[in-house]
């Protein structure tokens, strides 16, 4: 699961003029023709840096994203939900594995990425810094956050970097189940008893502003953004993704008799655009920089997994190992 909301501090598009002009032309020509870039190809440094950062953040979002839903893994009501939630959280870990591997093809090792995550040097999707108070929160995430992730990932899967596309293809196929499961679990509650309806409405109230920030603030149109779009690193603007998302999911939420906690939300028939209350971007910045309700816990848990698992990895480590990055 991943949103645009975390690619915040933009790398400056410096040094582009130092790149080899002939190689750059060949590189850009390949992308313009719709060909994919593979790991051994020449690529501008900015492309490599930006992709590493983006794929790495995506991977972190998966592994951290396993935690808010994992909160309910031992309490899922009934076999059907219990099995599905286990499988879904497992998939998120699997996606992290795929994405770390894709980022590794660009030259950053998994060890470095995990260290940067735990030490707060690298971001992940900000929504996972919020808690899941009830079972219904986990259902809302499974449905509406995963839905956002799919909008994002479908766009990214048409990007230019081969290994990332291959990983996303697998991920999108698996997420189809997440979305259906999430929808199913919300539908059961929304059409169920009054206690259930209340639970799911309250969860939606808690999560709506997170959902609205999921794709990130409006992108500033900069030379940088234009370059990344030309290189098919960034495939759609944050606002385009948000609009597409609202088009797809607002009707599905409303048909369940749920209320979306934003009185200003409506589609402007003239412009075809959704209008809404601007989310609190100051809070967003504060939380993404570490000051959210669950930041410390999320990183603490990952750190625990690393530290308490260290003896296992040390025991199996091959002293003669030489690092070879994965091939594709």
């Amino acid at each position: 699961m991943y949103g645009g909301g975390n690619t915040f501090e933009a790398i400056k598009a410096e040094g582009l003029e130092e790149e080899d002009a002939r190689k750059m032309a060949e590189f850009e020509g390949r992308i313009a023709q719709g060909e994919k870039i593979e790991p051994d190809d020449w690529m501008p440094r900015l492309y490599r840096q930006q992709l590493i950062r983006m794929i790495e953040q995506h991977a972190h979002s998966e592994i951290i994203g396993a935690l808010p839903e994992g909160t309910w893994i031992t309490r899922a009501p009934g076999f059907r939900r219990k099995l599905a939630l286990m499988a879904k959280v497992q998939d998120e870990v699997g996606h992290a594995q795929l994405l770390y591997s894709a980022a590794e093809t660009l030259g950053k090792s998994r060890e470095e990425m995990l260290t940067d995550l735990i030490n707060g040097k690298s971001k992940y999707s900000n929504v996972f810094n919020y808690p899941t108070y009830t079972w219904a929160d986990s259902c809302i995430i499974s449905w509406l956050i995963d839905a956002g992730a799919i909008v994002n990932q479908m766009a990214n899967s048409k990007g230019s970097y081969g290994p990332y596309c291959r990983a996303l293809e697998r991920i999108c196929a698996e997420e189809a189940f997440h979305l259906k499961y999430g929808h199913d679990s919300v539908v059961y509650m929304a059409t169920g008893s009054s206690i259930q309806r209340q639970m799911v409405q309250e969860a939606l109230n808690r999560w709506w502003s997170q959902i609205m920030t999921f794709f990130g603030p409006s992108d500033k149109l900069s030379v940088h953004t234009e370059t990344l779009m030309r290189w098919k690193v960034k495939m759609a603007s944050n606002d385009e993704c948000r609009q597409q998302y609202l088009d797809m999911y607002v009707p599905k939420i409303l048909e369940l008799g749920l209320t979306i906690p934003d009185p200003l939300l409506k589609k402007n028939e003239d412009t075809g655009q959704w209008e809404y209350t601007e989310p609190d971007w100051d809070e967003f910045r504060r939380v993404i920089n570490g000051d959210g309700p669950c930041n410390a816990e999320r990183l603490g848990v990952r750190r625990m997994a690393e530290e308490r698992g260290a003896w296992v990895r040390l025991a199996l480590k091959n002293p003669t190992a030489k690092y070879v990055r994965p091939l594709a």
Partner: protein
Amino acid sequence: MKEEAIKDLLYKIADDQLILGHRNSEWTGLGPILEEDIAFSSMAQDKIGHSLAFYTLLHELGEAEPDLLAFSRSATQFHNSQFTELPNGEFDYSLIRHFLYDNAEAIRFEKLSHSGYEPIAKVATKLKGEIKYHVLHANTWIRNLGSSTEEAISRLQNSLNSLMPYALGMFELSVYEQVLIDTGIYAGEEAIKEEWLTRIQQVLASTELTMPDIPSQTPMLGGRYGTHTKHLQPLLNEMAEVIKIDPTAEW
């Protein structure tokens, strides 16, 4: 008599699989290596899936629906061995339990696939492939870690020593033991235990781990008939926390 014996057998298998599957599922997202996290979660899902299959057979024999059986009984009504309900501890502890349990599970299911009670034989046959992986996984890990660093070996050895009495509790005799054996429904716990000892001994012999002295162990019995450690009831409360918010609702 025979039907009661079959139910008794089904309950202990289903409850074992559910409780250990539940415990193992706690590792999801918290494992020591990403890939192992995934593998461990798959096996936990398998176990819970197996319990569902056996609760379904019980339901066909007139017991309650699987969800009710799993989510609404209290600890004294559970037939799992105490071995399966112990908290996870660290990875060495969970791994040793996985190794001891899944080797027994494999033998149990092999025998059950020849059960004279057709529905059990069918389910057991269907699950063979999954259990094969579980045993391969467990034995590969023990072989690898069991002859690695001093720390790993001593962790595994300590876990093995403290878990062995509980593991032997898996083979607590049923009150219908003789009926089950005589009617060809089940090979019986003694037969399974003997084979189990041979198999785990074989794996341990290829490592630097030492098999605890079996005759001097006191098996932790009682789980099959409702005597449990203090850990089971809290586990069940947690498992049913959401469903109990509105037990009549569909979730």
